[in-house]
């Protein structure tokens, strides 16, 4: 073999992906969900572009021809910027979800160990998985390119922005995808991978910059330019924002930061994460091949078992080898039903320390038996601590600066903490039934005479129990600041009502989707989509339509959709009921009314659309009741559907 051929053998693309890429592409082409994903992405992008167009079309049709041309060029910029930001955000989410099953599905199917018995290297596994999913990302990105290119006809859109935004989007999606792939090595459940990756992204892209900004402000602005420049390199959101500013006002980038440099930094970070993944995947695979499916879980479990297993029985007590025939009479139907006199079960007594007696509904018992933190890994706890630590630091710093007398920080913190509670709730709600299906215990449960409602109730209780800790930071925050008098006592009550309604509703959707779908990943993704569509996409589109609508008044519909939005409710309740100066606000809001506690307290001022306390509380209560009723309806539907699609 010539030297060139030898070198080519080691550097050709197939050396980095092996047969994995080929297999992955074949398999994904047979999966309907990939086509659904592309169609949904395209439709969503078209919707966003259409609504943006509706808004700017109104401006273009005004004025003389010169101003129209000017407007068209500005419109082109807006459309391109909106499209670029849409794909920037959407592709990150898609990358996280796509990569979340990359390695975990091999572990789940028990094929990772088998793969490692072949000459395939860790690099090829990671490379193949990454390349196959990267291909889908590129396809999605390519979908939007014609729009970006065509809009250039309007003028005012530089090629540089199209190229830079595409590169920033791709590198960011690649980085988050790599993080997701890394987490998928340790987690069998993809929703857990998604949650951890989002948490990492929040820490890196939101918490860290916020802390840096606080540090800069604390130092009286010294070194702020350096920090912002660093941020521009390590934070793609910042880079994207700079690129967008540069599109609208060329040469206005004050940090002299090149997007190429930023992409280079993100790609270097990606390479680092992938390098660690390549090293670790082999260890995990070898453990799996030798009968241990995870790096840490098995170890912990074994330790637990070692602690809980009773000592070997003495020969005089141990049942003989032929215990079968000896013990058979005890199991005759009558004997099994009869109440045995005195003699408590020997084993039960000996092992009663580790075994808990079932009381009440067995499903509720089992769901409550699962410790909240029992299955959480060290890195998960660490990640949560970092996130909460960062938030606590920010809250403490804001309080230190005396900003807590204003309502804005409270509103922001309540919304962030609410989101931290909402996200796990959306995910956990969808896992109740599908995890049972995946562990194949679902048919066993359905083969018992337990009523559907009883099983579902147990599942709902389990979901509430598991998502409760996620709401604790919000509860603590509100209660602490209520205690010190910076939040009005009615706010915790209103927030609790809002949260309760949303939790019940999401439990209903999660359980219903669990009966429809077989895989946890699918159910979690579907529940996320429901929440996103209902509370993000629909309100945004309706608001855009309301702004852009010329003949049709969308206001009542927008109000109907926006008011029950938990984010809006939480934000408005906190905004109006927090801070020392909470009664000063007079800002008009376009929805059916303004919240308490704006005076006058006992009247409804139609001219300024103010609401009394009773009306506000009634509105919130109505929304909660609506969510509860919807949740109950879905609960009922889940009960009806439960015995379908079992296997």
């Amino acid at each position: 073999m010539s030297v060139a051929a030898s070198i080519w053998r080691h550097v050709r693309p197939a050396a980095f992906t092996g047969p994995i890429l080929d297999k992955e592409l074949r398999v994904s082409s047979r999966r309907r969900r990939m086509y659904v994903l592309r169609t949904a992405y395209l439709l969503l992008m078209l919707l966003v572009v259409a609504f943006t167009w509706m808004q700017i079309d109104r401006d273009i049709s005004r004025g003389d021809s010169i101003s129209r041309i000017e407007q068209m060029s500005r419109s082109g910029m807006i459309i391109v910027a909106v499209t670029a930001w849409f794909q920037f955000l959407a592709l990150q989410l898609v990358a996280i979800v796509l990569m979340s099953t990359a390695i975990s599905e091999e572990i789940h199917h028990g094929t990772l160990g088998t793969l490692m018995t072949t000459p395939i290297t860790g690099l090829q596994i990671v490379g193949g998985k990454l390349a196959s999913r990267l291909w889908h990302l590129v396809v999605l990105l390519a979908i939007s390119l014609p729009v970006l290119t065509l809009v250039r006809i309007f003028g005012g859109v530089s090629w540089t922005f199209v190229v830079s935004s595409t590169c920033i989007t791709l590198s960011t999606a690649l980085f988050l995808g790599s993080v997701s792939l890394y987490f998928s090595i340790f987690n069998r459940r993809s929703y857990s991978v998604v949650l951890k990756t989002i948490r990492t992204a929040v820490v890196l892209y939101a918490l860290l910059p916020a802390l840096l900004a606080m540090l800069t402000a604390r130092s009286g602005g010294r070194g702020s330019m350096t920090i912002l420049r660093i941020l521009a390199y390590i934070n793609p959101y910042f880079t994207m924002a700079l690129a967008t500013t540069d599109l609208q006002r060329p040469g206005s980038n004050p940090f002299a930061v090149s997007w190429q440099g930023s992409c280079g930094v993100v790609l270097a970070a990606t390479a680092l994460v992938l390098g660690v993944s390549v090293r670790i995947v082999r260890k995990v695979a070898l453990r799996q091949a030798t009968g241990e499916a995870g790096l840490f879980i098995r170890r912990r479990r074994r330790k637990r078992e070692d602690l809980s297993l009773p000592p070997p029985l003495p020969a005089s007590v141990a049942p003989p080898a032929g215990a079968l025939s000896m013990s058979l009479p005890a199991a005759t139907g009558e004997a099994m039903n009869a109440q045995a006199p005195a003699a408590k079960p020997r084993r039960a007594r000996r092992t009663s320390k580790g075994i808990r007696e079932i009381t009440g509904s067995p499903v509720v018992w089992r769901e409550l038996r699962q410790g909240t933190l029992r299955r959480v890994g060290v890195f998960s706890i660490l990640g949560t601590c970092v996130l909460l630590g960062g938030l606590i630091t920010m809250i403490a710093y804001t309080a230190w600066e005396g900003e807590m007398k204003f309502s804005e920080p409270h509103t922001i913190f309540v919304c962030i903490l609410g989101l931290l509670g909402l996200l796990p709730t959306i995910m956990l709600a969808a896992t109740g039934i599908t995890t049972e299906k995946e562990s194949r215990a679902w048919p066993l449960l359905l083969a018992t005479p337990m009523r559907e409602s009883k099983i579902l109730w147990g599942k709902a209780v389990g979901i509430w129990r598991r998502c409760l800790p996620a709401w604790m930071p919000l509860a603590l925050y509100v209660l602490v600041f209520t205690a010190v008098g910076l939040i009005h006592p009615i706010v915790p009550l209103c927030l609790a009502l809002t949260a309760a309604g949303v939790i019940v509703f999401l439990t209903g959707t999660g359980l219903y989707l669990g009966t429809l779908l077989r895989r946890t990943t699918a159910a979690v993704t579907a529940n996320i989509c429901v929440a996103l569509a209902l509370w993000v996409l629909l309100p945004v589109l309706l608001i855009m339509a309301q702004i852009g609508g010329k003949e049709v008044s969308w206001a009542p519909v927008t109000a109907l959709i926006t008011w029950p939005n938990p984010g809006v409710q939480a934000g408005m309740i906190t905004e109006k009921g927090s801070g020392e100066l909470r009664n000063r606000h007079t800002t008009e809001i376009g929805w059916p009314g303004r919240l308490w506690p704006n005076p006058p307290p006992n009247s409804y001022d139609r001219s300024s659309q103010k609401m009394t306390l009773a009306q506000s509380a009634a509105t919130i209560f109505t929304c909660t009741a609506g969510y509860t009723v919807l949740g109950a309806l879905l609960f009922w539907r889940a009960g009806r559907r439960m015995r379908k699609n079992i296997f």
Partner: protein
Amino acid sequence: MIKITGLTKTYGRLTALESLDLHIASGDIFGFIGPNGAGKTTTMRVLATLLEPTAGQAWIDGLDVRRHGREVRRRVGYMPDFMGVYDDLKVFEYLEFFAAAFELPRGQRRKTVSDVLELTDLTGKSDALVDSLSRGMQQRLGLARVLVHDPKVLILDEPASGLDPRARIEIRELLKELKRMGKTIMISSHILSELEEMCDHVGIIEKGRLIFAGTMDQIHERLGLSSRLIVRVAGPPEPAAALLAGLPQVEAAKAAEGAIRITLRAGQKDDGLIARTLVMAGIDVMGLASERIRLDDAFLSLTAGAVQ
């Protein structure tokens, strides 16, 4: 105890079961055999109320599985061909959980679970986590689970798969004991020799159709295998084989492994004819037996190996 009439189950265009008729008497062990994808598991799932049939009816203990699902579930212990485990429960808790799910009174559960654990020889594992058990142990646990509510009918889908020979023998003995206790057992397995030994009746299903149901003797009759004989003679068997082959009642007679294998023509039941002929020819007969067909052979003869 189990009655099925015209049971049909379709999945889109695929017909998994086609007008299945079956009757299993109380206290019987019914072996259900067929190639992979023949419809055994589908039938069992319908009986366990986990699948809605497309057409037809099934009764267990006189109760329609469609209309009286809950009551049927109380009477049936269903063990699927896979082991569903809760990865965070211990063996004792797992069984107690199902005891509670089958609505056993609280005071009775622990005693029952202990009994069932002893019965299935799992007492030593009661404190182990369910998913840490070996495959064989999990199968035993599955069997323990179906016994926990003392059902009248046991529907066992390949309960011996993955078990070592000793465990298989133990399960076979256990099933015989359960039969003595009056349980009706419907069992599917690919280890036909085991079914042959313990089953009163056998059903052979292929492509969703029941192609045979009856006792082992009825299989013999159906295949005309009662007319197969094995004769051992003193001295070399070849001359005797040649003599018998010349008889008009004998279809074939071959010497093999020191014996003569004889196939009589259809309708011939005169076993004495062979002995008489040999004795009259001065050949000492050392032994004469009718060859018993094995279930494996019957299965191969009756099925074409086709799957859905």
